[in-house]
């Protein structure tokens, strides 16, 4: 199990690096899917098989498909990669990288301060999760459903092309 | 119950006036007038209520015997908030002034306001309700509530019906009063918690908070919180600059209420709260207050003279006159306090009348710039005569009420601080300069711009006649007012004396107060309290 964790962690990091550096959106998306799958494995190795499955089905499946659709609808064409390259000038990396490294150093320092190489305890199966989900967290679930509904309505509203725009394009 | 009605009548009157606007634009005016007249009648009933016997000297009498009318209902007992309204002679006088000026304000805006009449009267009546509440509240929480309540309608009065620069003026007014109001809130809460820590009783009740013991430094800072809030309203000189703007830009009724009433809430606060609640700190502060008062008197007068905008000029005179009030309050002897109360009332009436006059002029010739006026006496002798009268009242002509106020303030403060009183007296000369300047610039001289305008007629003459009668009455026979105020002021003074006896830690300020051993009755006073003039209490008590 340990090996699984280390390997999939390495894969996740590498593919995530590719996500933020690739110029082509579809390529980046594919790397993200790989990253998500690797993280699903990490979840499994951390004793959360149910979530690992969710990760694969919902994240890597459903959400990523949304991205694919949108990229398809935008229909960016061949020039987009060049434009992306122009937008991503090397000098721009310096500031963010410095900031991010500081943040990371702080995170690691914070973790290292309480370093107790704590081992995990046990696998938590779908059953326990389900009981908790529909027991004490029931209101949370309801709220999540409402959030999803709101997202649905919002996405529908925003994604709709208003008439004027449609007329403008038709001309 | 009569007290709550005093507040509710204008409050409801305002709402009804607002709605009645839709039926007829004259209706809000009549409704406001009727509501205020009703209030006035209630107050007259209180005025003629059989007098209350003064409690024997040296006893702070609490409870019903102190008041002409009282209402004390528990409201939020958990936090010690109660709906405690009470009226003594001082409050009665100030509420009477409020309603009287309210009526004149409604009458003076009869033709001036043509836009959103209903809403205007709503704001007007609510300001009045708030002011009445401030004068009646005996619970600090309720007091603060009314204190804030009167600001917001005032803001709208300035911002919606004001003149050219109204938004700037309204915002400036609001920020000044709001910031100082927050200091007041902090100080109230500080007092509340200190009282609770001392006694375990959480209460906002004024009478219970009187005499709360605290460290001198704490007392000083809390006193400062109260003082600043009231000083901004009064206004005392370095924090006065909202006043000229607000007064100038407000509509006539707004200026009348600002100058006649809102400023008075500051004076009332000092009188009722700042000094009785924090006597030692206040008396320690007294020398500074004297200096500020004197500066205010002279500076306001000089700046009044410097103005070319007539309304602004009148606004600056308020600063000068309220300096006398500050002087009188901090002198804290009967003569000076009575003078301060008299000055409050007379300044309210006289300055209100001057603002109505300016408003009437502006309505007729559409300018406030004195350079564009001159020689108006020939075309409007009545306006000229009335203006002359109130200018004379303003410069403190004997025989008129303002003189009584200023004279008594100076007489009382002379006993406490000769230098302050003497320099303040110079303010009378400066007052002469600006008051006569108004008359010269507006009514005398050649009528360069060939103004022709209608003179005062019925409605305006009635307002003016009422105000003239009040001023002359107060100038020649002010005793009824002194009788009413005397009992209340006596109670306030006694409450301070008792606190000083109860806590035998007389500070240096105590000496300042009775420092002039030259003067016999101060020495007498000291003997009553049990000190030798000039010797701190510690020495007497052998500490």
């Amino acid at each position, binding site marked *: 199990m340990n090996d699984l964790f280390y390997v999939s962690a390495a894969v996740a990091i590498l593919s995530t690096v590719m996500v933020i550096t690739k110029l082509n959106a579809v390529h980046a998306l594919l790397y993200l899917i790989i990253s998500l799958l690797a993280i699903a494995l990490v979840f499994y190795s951390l004793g959360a098989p149910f979530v690992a499955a969710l990760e694969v089905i919902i994240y890597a499946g459903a959400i990523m498909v949304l991205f694919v659709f949108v990229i398809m609808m935008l229909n960016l064409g061949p020039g987009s990669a060049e434009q992306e390259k122009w937008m991503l000038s090397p000098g721009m990396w310096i*500031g963010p990288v410095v900031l991010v490294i500081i943040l990371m150093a702080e995170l690691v320092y914070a973790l290292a301060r309480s370093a107790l190489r704590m081992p995990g305890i046990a696998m938590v199966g779908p059953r326990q999760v389900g009981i908790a989900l529909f027991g004490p967290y029931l209101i949370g679930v309801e709220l999540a459903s409402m959030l999803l509904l709101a997202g649905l309505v919002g996405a529908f509203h925003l994604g709709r092309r208003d008439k004027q725009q449609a007329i403008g394009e038709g001309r | 119950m009569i007290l709550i009605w005093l507040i509710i009548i204008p409050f409801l009157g305002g709402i009804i006036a607002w709605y009645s606007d839709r039926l007829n634009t004259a209706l809000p005016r009549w409704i406001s007038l009727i509501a205020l007249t009703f209030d006035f009648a209630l107050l007259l009933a209180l005025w003629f209520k059989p007098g209350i016997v003064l409690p024997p000297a040296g006893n702070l009498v609490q409870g019903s015997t102190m008041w002409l009318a009282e209402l004390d209902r528990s409201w939020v007992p958990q936090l010690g908030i109660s709906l405690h309204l009470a009226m003594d002679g001082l409050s009665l006088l100030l509420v009477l002034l409020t309603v009287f000026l309210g009526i004149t304000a409604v009458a003076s805006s009869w033709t001036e306001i043509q836009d959103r009449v209903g809403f205007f009267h709503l704001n007007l009546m609510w300001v009045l309700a708030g002011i009445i509440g401030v004068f009646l509240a005996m619970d600090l929480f309720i007091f603060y509530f009314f204190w804030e309540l009167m600001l917001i309608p005032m803001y709208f009065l300035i911002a919606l019906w004001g003149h050219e620069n109204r938004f700037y003026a309204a915002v400036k007014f609001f920020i000044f009063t709001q910031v100082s109001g927050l200091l007041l809130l902090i100080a109230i809460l500080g007092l509340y918690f200190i009282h609770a820590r001392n006694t375990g009783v959480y209460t906002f009740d004024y009478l219970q908070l009187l005499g709360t013991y605290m460290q001198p430094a704490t007392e000083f800072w809390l006193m400062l919180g109260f003082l600043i809030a009231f000083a901004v309203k009064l206004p005392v000189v370095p924090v006065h600059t909202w006043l000229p703007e607000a007064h100038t830009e407000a509509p006539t009724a707004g200026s009348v209420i600002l100058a006649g009433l809102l400023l008075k809430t500051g004076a009332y606060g000092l009188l009722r709260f700042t000094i009785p609640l924090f006597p030692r700190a206040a008396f320690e502060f007294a020398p500074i207050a004297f200096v500020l008062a004197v500066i205010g008197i002279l500076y306001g007068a000089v*700046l009044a003279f410097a*103005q070319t905008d007539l309304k602004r000029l009148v606004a600056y005179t308020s600063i000068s006159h309220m300096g006398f009030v500050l002087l009188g309050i901090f002198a804290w002897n009967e003569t000076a306090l009575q003078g301060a109360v008299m000055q409050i009332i007379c300044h309210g009436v006289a300055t209100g009348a001057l603002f109505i006059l300016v408003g009437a002029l502006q309505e007729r010739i559409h300018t406030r710039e004195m350079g564009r006026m001159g020689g108006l006496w020939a075309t409007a002798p009545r306006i000229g005569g009335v203006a002359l009268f109130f200018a004379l009242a303003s410069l403190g002509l004997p025989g008129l009420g303002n003189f009584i106020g200023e004279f008594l303030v100076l*007489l009382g403060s002379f006993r406490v601080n000769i230098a302050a009183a003497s320099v303040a007296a110079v303010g009378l000369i400066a007052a002469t300069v600006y008051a006569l300047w108004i008359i010269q610039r507006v009514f005398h*001289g050649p009528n360069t711009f060939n103004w022709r305008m209608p003179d005062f007629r019925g409605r305006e003459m009635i307002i003016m006649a009422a105000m003239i009668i009040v001023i002359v009455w107060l100038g020649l026979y002010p005793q009824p007012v002194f009788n009413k105020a005397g009992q209340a002021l006596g109670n306030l003074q006694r409450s301070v004396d008792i606190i000083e006896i109860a806590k035998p830690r007389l500070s240096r300020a105590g000496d300042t107060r009775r420092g002039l051993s030259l003067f016999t009755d101060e020495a007498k006073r000291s003997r009553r309290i049990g000190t030798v003039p000039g010797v701190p209490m510690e020495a007497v008590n052998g500490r």
Partner: protein
Amino acid sequence: MIMFKLLWLIPALPFAGFIILALTGSRLTRTRTAVIGAGSAGLSMVITILTGIRFIGSPPPGNAYVQVLWTWMSVGGFRPEIAFRLDALSLAMITVVTAVGFLIHLYSSEFMAGDEGYSRFFAYMNLFVGSMLTLVLADNLLLLYLGWEGVGLCSYLLIGFWYKDTYNGYAARKAFVVTRIGDTAMGIGLFLLFTVLGTLQIQELMQRALQQWGSGNVMAGAAAALLLGGALGKSAQLPLQTWLPDAMAGPTPVSALIHAATMVTAGVYLIARTHVLFSLAPLVQAAVAVIGAVTLLIAGFSALTQSDIKRVLAYSTISQIGYMFLALGVGAWSAAIFHFMTHAFFKALLFLGAGVVILGLHNEHNMFKMGGLRKQLPLTFWTFLIGAASLSALPLVTAGYYSKDLILYSAWASEAGSPLLWAAGLAGALLTALYTFRMVFLVFFGEEKTRVERKPGMQIKIPLIILAVLSIIGGFVETPASLGGLHIFTKFMYTALPPVVNLPLPATGEFILEIEAALAPPIGIFIAYLFFLYRPRYTGRLASTPSGSALHRFWFSGWGFDWIYDRIIVRPFLWFARIDKNDFLDLPYLGTIWAGKGVNRLLVHTQTGKVRWYAVGIVIGAILALSAMVFL
């Protein structure tokens, strides 16, 4: 006693007249206005005279009668009353005020006939008479102060009566403000007196002062000096004399009543009333004498150079009040009041005569454009001549001689007197005769330069005649020892004022003093004749020398006092008012506004509108927050 009960009517009647005229405005006819205006003053005079006869006939106990109307207020031991006190001093004052007041009202009813502000004029005049009577009759200093300010107000209103001319307004304001400076000093004096002695009731105050203070007490000195400040302002004495010449901008009857006969002598009355304080403060009293002496000389020299007939009379008034102050300063209280009385008669007469001239010549004030009016205005000439003789103190026949002689004698002989004061007075007497007859010669003698357009009617002539008679016989009630030694007036005054304490002086000494005092006026008149009638060229030559013209200008401008006050008070005040019009103290608040706007302008740059930029902000915030959590 019934007569005394009517005392309150004496000031009340003019006040009633004022109220009626003020309320009716210009709706009454001119005749009715005049009847109300002059009638109220006349009625008041009748009551005064009846009361006076009664008072002299059977004096009330203590030689004083006090009528309390009501308690003004009662605050913390301060309990002034609206109360009137009739004693010898106030009786003399009210008699003069009502008599001269009524005559001038009568005169004005014709003099002002063509003026559009007819009823306003009479309203103000009535208000003045009422206030003046209140001042004089007041039983306590606060009521006196009410009258005191009231007359100042009326002076202001009447100087600026022709308000359309900006200069008149200036003169009026100057008068009010300058006198108010003195009034404020007086007010502080009242505070001091009440604070120390605990009352403002005059008799009570004087008694307590005598009990509590010895002679030379600092408090008494301070109080007396402050009251003196008020008196100096009101009576136009050095250094507050500058307003009176300008006050001549008002109508001539006003100058006659307010600025010659009555109001300006209020200061003399005040000092006489509070003489106890001044006796307790010898230093201040000496100052009164010195101020009087210096003022009478300075004003005399200024009068010599004026070309405006009314300004000559104004300076002469200052000078004559200087005599009264001199008398007060040497303790000759009665002499001061005596001179007040005769001065009221002849100075009112002179002003009224000058008014006739001015009216007749279409508002011409310049004496050099007049001349030879003797033939055209015979009655005016003769009465004016009588007034001038009385002012010059022409010996034996005029009232002015007797009063001035008394003052000069006291200045030498009194305990507090000194030969220097006497010399100043004597020089002043010569000067008085000189400038008075300069005026008479310029106006009534010489060649006729203009035609008189308007001849006076009966309402003008009657007051002139009565005042002329009074200017002659008014002095016979008090004569020096060598001329019969009548002392009716001073004896009467001694019931209210202490007699002057004279050093023993041999009878021959007194006689010599009288001769000298009697000689000064004729010499002055002779010089005037020499310079202004017989050989006017000399004058022109003298005035055209460099030092002569410089001196002329210096005297003409009233010794440069106006210039000094303009530089040290008026201009700094105006300068400060101008630069501070927008209030320096608002700057800190404006500063906060500017600071707020400045910071806003800086922070605006952080709002780039770019999402990534905001994200960087979040990251930096996160770093800081985390640092705080980790490292703190």
